[in-house]
């Protein structure tokens, strides 16, 4: 396909045959490509990174305790509960839908664990299993309302918000609050258990190693297939920077209590969901349905099944988040899942870069977004601000995040990046 017959070159790689494409092969090229993407509105994790730096600087100036290792450990404990809920939100947002009842769902799950385990004496795993099944059932109902009856998810889940809250109050009964035993493994998991230092350092090595190995494997396969591959140097730099950053974070957290197991569970779920979204047919279908539902249907995707999977996953993860919240607070109460849980979970997904309009997002979004949200909430608590101010400020941050999303989307449309 080359138009320059006077320059007989070695056979070009399949994906480099078109001379109109600039080939960003070098490190400088990768950087240039990144800048181009940002300029065209494909912001990636940039807003989050900037946000985190600003938050850290501002809060540590106002109160140096903010950056203390033990405060950050607490922050990670808090992140895990709402973060898990936010992972589910990513799935439904990806379809351009919403679940407004995740807060209530987490409250119901927390109440179920309290009632079934403490009051009725069921074994913990069975009680947790029942809570998760309740989540799946409610997600199934939402998906049925949406796909069979055409009820907008916004309305269906708004109704669900109230109905599930009612169920939570009903099963908690007149006392309204159940304390979970402090010595139980569940509460210890939610409040105390941290990884041994050596283990956390070993775990921090893993992402870099996996990145390097899969990167090398992919590069070898691409070259063998006649495609261009990412240069070795770039891969090494990425893996190196990632490992250094994680090892530093782990070292710093180990100056305090260490890395919470609960955060480890959350991070594992993030990795699993990220894999599912990017490397499986299910994830690809999720993107497709969110981008163009009719096109997805015509290419033979079972659109209805995709909606079912997303809504059920969302409610189930919300229930899991509720169980973790109960463990964190050592209680199941009427307040669980109320207040800002709903909004924080949704805000985390959006701040991390999951589009409200569907078809764009990642599991990292939930992880990064929840760290931003919890950092703000934690910083404001340290300043002894009342919850009235905290709500106002968090609301403002969410508004800014959505504005950034809308502007970036407009820019992407004008730059032809979907």
């Amino acid at each position, binding site marked *: 396909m080359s138009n320059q017959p006077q320059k007989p070159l070695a056979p070009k790689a399949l994906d480099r045959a078109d001379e109109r494409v600039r080939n960003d092969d070098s490190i400088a090229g990768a950087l240039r490509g990144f800048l181009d993407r940002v300029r065209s509105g494909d912001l990636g994790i940039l807003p989050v990174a900037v946000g985190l730096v600003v938050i850290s600087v501002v809060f540590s100036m106002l109160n140096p305790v903010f950056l203390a290792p033990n405060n950050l450990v607490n922050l990670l404990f808090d992140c895990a509960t709402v973060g898990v809920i936010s992972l589910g939100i990513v799935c439904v947002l990806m379809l351009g839908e919403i679940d407004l009842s995740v807060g209530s769902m987490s409250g119901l799950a927390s109440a179920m664990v309290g009632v079934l385990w403490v009051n009725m004496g069921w074994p913990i795993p069975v009680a947790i299993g029942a809570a998760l099944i309740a989540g799946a059932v409610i997600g199934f109902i939402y998906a049925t309302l949406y796909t069979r009856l055409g009820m907008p998810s916004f309305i269906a889940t708004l109704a669900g918000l109230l109905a599930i809250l009612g169920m939570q109050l009903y099963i908690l009964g007149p006392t309204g609050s159940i304390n979970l035993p402090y010595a139980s493994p569940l509460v210890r998991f939610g409040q105390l258990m941290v990884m041994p230092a050596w283990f956390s350092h070993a775990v921090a090595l893993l992402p870099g190693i996996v990145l390097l190995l899969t990167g090398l494997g992919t590069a070898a396969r691409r070259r063998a297939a006649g495609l261009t591959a990412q240069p070795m140097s770039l891969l090494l730099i990425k893996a190196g920077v990632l490992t250094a950053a994680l090892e530093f974070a782990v070292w710093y957290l180990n100056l305090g209590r260490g890395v919470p197991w609960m955060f480890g569970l959350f991070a594992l779920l993030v990795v699993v969901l990220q894999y599912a979204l990017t490397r499986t047919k299910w994830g690809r279908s999720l993107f497709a349905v969110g981008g*163009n539902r009719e096109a997805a249907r*015509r*290419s033979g995707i079972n659109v209805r099944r995709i909606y079912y999977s997303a809504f059920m996953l969302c409610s189930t993860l919300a229930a899991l988040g509720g169980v973790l919240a109960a463990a964190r607070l050592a209680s199941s109460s009427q307040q669980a899942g109320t207040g800002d849980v709903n909004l924080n979970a949704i805000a985390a997904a959006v701040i991390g870069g999951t589009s409200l309009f569907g078809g764009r997002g990642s599991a990292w979004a939930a992880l990064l977004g929840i760290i931003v949200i919890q950092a703000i909430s934690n910083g404001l608590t340290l300043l002894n601000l009342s919850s009235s101010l905290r709500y106002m400020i968090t609301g403002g941050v969410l508004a800014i995040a959505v504005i950034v999303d809308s502007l970036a989307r407009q820019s992407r449309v004008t730059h032809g990046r979907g």
Partner: protein
Amino acid sequence: MSGNETGRAGERLLSLRGISKKFGAVSALTDIELDVHAGEVVALVGDNGAGKSTLVKVLAGVHQPTAGTVEFMGREVTLDSPAAALNLGIATVFQDLALCENLDVVANLFLGHEMNPWQLDEVQMEVRAWTLLRELAARIPSVREPVASLSGGQRQTVAIARSLLLSPKVIMLDEPTAALGVAQTAEVLNLIERVRDRGLGVIIISHNMEDVRAVADRIVVLRLGRNNGVFTPDASNHELVAAITGATENAVSRRESRKAAEVTE
């Protein structure tokens, strides 16, 4: 476009009997009869609103017919979903292309039929995408850009490439050349002939009589949702236009006679 020998040439692949489709009070299609044989290009022509696209959507499983039967390879089939049509081997390039703009070219080509569902084989899919696009002599700069960044013609090519990916037995193209440049139009027509020579049945919808004549073995005219004659490519323009518009005295013939009169003056 992998090896797919579809029986003997001339075998009847698709046969529609009495297909009707009503949208409420509107009869979009009434008693349509249509046969497609292996190794044959059938052109569907007709004015705007003649029911061509509706017929294509019925065959693609997007719309379900109100009445009538569809026979595919001698068996009566129900095309109740796009997946059913695709699995039988009826591939469609829709007029609106039906691409996901947020996904890249590779993802769109393989949508719903990804290699290795639990660990997507991106390398193989990309190689296959490049080979396929090369066969179509497509000028796509990069298969890793979202489809949103492609031009109309490039999107058309991607849509055609996608329909061929599954080695279908019948392929339907709804206005495949409407958005294409001169060279790509010729490529698409070449491609249609190549596909036909492999023994596939091709249904092509086009408003461009020149293209239709160039490739079609039979020209089926629809008018107001009904069959209105079957022609061979050597039928005169006058006959075709008359069948399409339903009158020997029509805008086209009036214009021609006026032009002729101007020349003789």
